[in-house]
């Protein structure tokens, strides 16, 4: 008997018991085990990939304090300042590392997001007469839906300001809903696939009664 498969199957069924009762003891037991495992794994992960190699110098060929990279003292001190929040008299100090992280996050977004939307814009330059009726109509629909959707997201022009805006927003809303409907269908199918995967695991890999 493969004990790994047995454990996986039991865990899967234990999670499914949530559907019958969302506070039953089997579900709560497996839930606590899962969270505990995840938390323990994270502690180990951060130790072996970040803290250990750079702070203590446990990693091979990794720059660390032990190999003379004293500049790591700065981020370590900044990071440790977060714990000041547990000392009421100096808890305000903890806001500095948080501000630094927030500022870095905003800068990162600004630096690495723009190239994505430039490509999206230029890919929206449709040829409205391709020489073929079907593809030309397709491009017209794409363009009108795109412009309508853009109008839907104008936040400083009232949606009933004029007939053009009103019509554009109406078209945009329909385009968004049709798009979301298609995405909904795709995602639901994907979730069914996941479910079939688990069924295959239990009936095939574990019980050997179906699925080969």
């Amino acid at each position, binding site marked *: 008997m493969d004990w790994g498969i047995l454990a996986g199957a039991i865990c899967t069924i234990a999670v499914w018991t949530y559907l019958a009762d969302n506070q039953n003891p089997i579900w709560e037991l497996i839930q606590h085990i899962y969270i505990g495992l995840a938390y323990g794994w994270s502690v180990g992960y951060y130790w072996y990939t970040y803290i250990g190699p750079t702070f203590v110098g446990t990693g091979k060929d990794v720059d660390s304090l032990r190999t003379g990279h004293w500049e790591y003292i700065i981020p370590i001190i900044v990071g440790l300042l977060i714990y000041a929040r547990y000392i009421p008299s100096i808890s305000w100090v903890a806001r500095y590392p948080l501000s630094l992280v927030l500022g870095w996050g905003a800068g990162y977004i600004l630096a690495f997001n723009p190239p994505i939307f430039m490509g999206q814009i230029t890919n929206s330059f449709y040829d409205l007469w391709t020489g073929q009726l079907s593809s030309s109509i397709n491009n017209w629909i794409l363009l009108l839906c*795109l412009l309508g959707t853009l109008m839907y*997201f104008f936040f400083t022009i009232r949606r009933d300001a004029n007939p053009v805006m009103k019509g554009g927003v109406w078209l945009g809303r329909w385009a968004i809903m049709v798009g979301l409907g298609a995405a909904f269908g795709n995602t639901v199918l994907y979730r069914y696939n996941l479910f079939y995967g688990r069924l295959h695991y239990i009936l095939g890999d574990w019980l050997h009664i179906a699925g080969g």
Partner: protein
Amino acid sequence: MPFGLSLLAQEESKAVWGIFTAGQAGAFVAVAIFAILVYVMITRARAGQSIREIHKIPGLDAISEAVGRATEMGRPVHYTMGLPSITDPQTIAAFPVLGYVAKLCAQYETRLINTVPDVVIYAINEEIIRQAYLEAGRPDAFNPDDVRFITDWQFAYVAGVLEILAAEKPAAQILFAGPFYAEAMIFIEAGALAGAIQVGGTASTAQLPFFVAGCDYALIGEEIYAASAYLSKEPIITGTVVGEDYFKFLIFAAIIVGTLIATFATSNPLATFMTS
């Protein structure tokens, strides 16, 4: 990619002065225009000069309605940001909304439970909620134990949230603003089981359909950024959204011009410039 070609690719993409990368001149010009627009709008907003107003977003009223319902029922409000990351714009947009919700909860004396799967966001959220309670004049009502880091594993976090929803039975759940992934629908379903009114908002395209289908009110896409500005009334955020709107108008115009060129000309210099 073969090793030699890989080295060549690295050489080509090397940035001049660490800033200017080949093939991104168009993006640089766009960002420069955007920055100027935002700067001008923020300056005008700060100086009290007139800028265009942000119109009201219907889903936003639902937030105060949800908190009001929780108050009447004497049950808590649960706020989740999905799987937030400090490098995601949606997470940044969620902070003012969390502050707004926390302030409402403090004023109405309603318990707010915030669950978080990220240690950095956890620390930030705790500060935001603490500050909101302080601004509402009720710092004593803030309970740090109600801001809960569970774990940074996606589905282990989900398991923790499901337990909280089942045990605490919040009367309102606010899922704002993400990014959300596969956990979104599970939260919405568990919120419905707990009998909570649910207000959601995200720009995560794959999860938006679930928000629209499952939440009582949903803010879609960029509405979350406008909501952030509308609620905070901060000149910086408001100016940014107004500046963004002008920029969107430029994009709108660029698409029309680019389409006309693509239809009537053999080459498209606008597309070439924008991707140059």
